[in-house]
């Protein structure tokens, strides 16, 4: 009872001379030998194409992330070539897996050790909302303790879904204003989580 194959039927052969993707230039004013644009756009472009993620992989979603990092789905295409396991050196905290209530303070400690600008991605149902584990020991979503930017639903989400979440993070990073982290709104948000 197999269905006919619908995707990748006529694959495009790899072209070694034409396989480098270039990022689009931001809007700006060009002239002879100069290009003027907003600083925020340039900084955002640089940041979004070189995010260093911190994989906080706890359970099954961590395995899907390993598949995403491997060659078939390749996260390195998006600039996340270097994964760090030290929060001091990373931009994006990817929480993948079930977080128990006992793990909560540890996750918060890892988040606090990251330096601004930092983003958080909750991968999978357990990190987003506790998933199928509606129990006394599982934290019902990491947004109870840290602010989250992107949620990737799924149990586990397919690697394509994790990549889609990563691309949404890239959109957020590219469009963030340089002064967002100093604004009143942001301080209020951090205050609601008890973070200075």
């Amino acid at each position, binding site marked *: 009872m197999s269905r006919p194959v619908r995707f990748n039927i006529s694959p495009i052969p790899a072209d070694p001379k034409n396989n480098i993707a270039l990022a689009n230039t931001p809007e700006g004013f060009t002239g002879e030998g100069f290009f003027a644009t907003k600083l925020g756009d340039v900084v955002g472009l640089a940041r979004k194409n070189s995010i260093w993620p911190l994989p906080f992989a706890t359970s099954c979603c961590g395995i899907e992330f390993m598949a995403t990092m491997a060659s078939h789905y390749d996260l390195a295409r998006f600039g996340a070539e270097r994964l760090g396991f030290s929060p001091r050196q990373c931009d994006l905290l990817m929480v993948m897996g079930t977080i128990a209530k006992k793990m909560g303070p540890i996750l918060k400690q890892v988040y606090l050790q990251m330096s601004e600008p930092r983003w958080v991605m909750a991968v999978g149902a357990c990190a987003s909302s506790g998933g199928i584990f*509606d129990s006394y020991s599982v934290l019902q979503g990491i947004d109870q303790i840290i602010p989250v930017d992107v949620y990737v639903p799924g149990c586990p989400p397919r690697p394509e879904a994790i990549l889609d979440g990563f691309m949404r993070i890239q959109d957020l990073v590219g469009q963030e204003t340089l002064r967002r982290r100093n604004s009143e709104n942001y301080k209020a948000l951090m205050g609601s989580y008890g973070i200075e």
Partner: protein
Amino acid sequence: MALTNETIKARLIEKFADQVSQFEEPYGLLTFEAPKDLNLKVLQFLYDEDELKFRFLTDLTAVHYPGQPGRELAVVYHLHNLVDNIRIRFKIFTAIEKPDVFTATKLFSAANWMERETFDFFGVNFQGHPNLKRILNVDEMDYFPMRKEYPMEDQTRRDKDDAMFGRG
């Protein structure tokens, strides 16, 4: 002569007379019960005897029977004779008001964390344990979650939307 369940049962009755009781063999695993004050004596006997040699503690857990007043908490030991490959299950029952049981840590080091887990989830107080505190749950938890009166869901959630959970 190979060690069999009948031999083990005969040795236990010979040593402890009528204090060991409730001999059963569900799925071929010899199971028996003893009063809770004798638990260390029975474990030591099963450990020391050269014919019995139950020197490996596979599991130590508890079961809560709310319908048996005076015998609500059962502490279950699973022992294994590695040489002859025979397993045995040993149960002791204790009342829930005073769930004090002697610790098996001196005999089996594995009992250390297993007893902590049993304390964490059922509230069995192991006397003589070197470090009896919660192991898997948060330290501030004030109840014993695996007892039958507590539901699995966390009762302090405020974000459970009735519509999303199919309750109108």
